[in-house]
């Protein structure tokens, strides 16, 4: 599973991307956030307020209950501010 971080989520985690193999019980975006939060203090800080985090699964906007699978590309980022 390829995990990407953008904007202040990237700054708090400390890296732009990582390739990980979460355990089988990580089935959706919310489960992945919970699992990632335990990886480092930076991850914990980035995900401290899950309501400020948005996610994409395979480059489509996703919800906390969106499923995640081994070969997916998952991205975490703040609410978008383009335009």
């Amino acid at each position, binding site marked *: 599973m390829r995990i990407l971080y953008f*904007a202040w989520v990237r700054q708090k985690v400390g890296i732009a991307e990582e390739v990980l193999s979460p355990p089988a019980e990580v089935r959706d975006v919310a489960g992945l956030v919970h699992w990632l939060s335990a990886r480092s203090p930076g991850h914990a800080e980035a995900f401290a307020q899950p309501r400020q985090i948005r996610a994409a699964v395979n*480059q*489509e906007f996703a919800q906390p209950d969106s499923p995640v699978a081994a070969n997916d590309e998952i991205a975490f*980022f703040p*609410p*978008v501010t383009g*335009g």
Partner: protein
Amino acid sequence: MPRISVQEAVFDLAAESAALSAGRDDIGGIASFVGICRADDGIAAMVLEHYPGMTEKALAAIAAEAERRWPLTGCTIIHRVGRLEPGAPIVLVLTASAHRSAALESCAFLIDWLKTGAPFWKREEFADGTSRWVEARAEDEAATSRW
């Protein structure tokens, strides 16, 4: 096919507009929106980051939705990324149609939607070297939901 581009380089409004109408006699009007970097709170520059790959897909999906809702003969979305100083153009939306209402409405739709539906993030840089991430605005969500 809409023209979608995410780029650091500045865009040329006149050239992009001319490209939409070149060789056609069925276009009654082209609506345009150019977003420009403001110097709010004395910012020295705005740095735009995006999600390569997803950004282009999201903009293409938004453009396809505009083409589904309005009878457009052409559509261009160019969004700049990187470091932009106050006064610099950030985003260009052009919509062409046989009639003005479709062009004007779809242009407003596109700029509202791309503010909330495409993965861009702005960071404001100040003269003293500090910077802060721009927070999403509830007004932008409200502007999108009206469509």
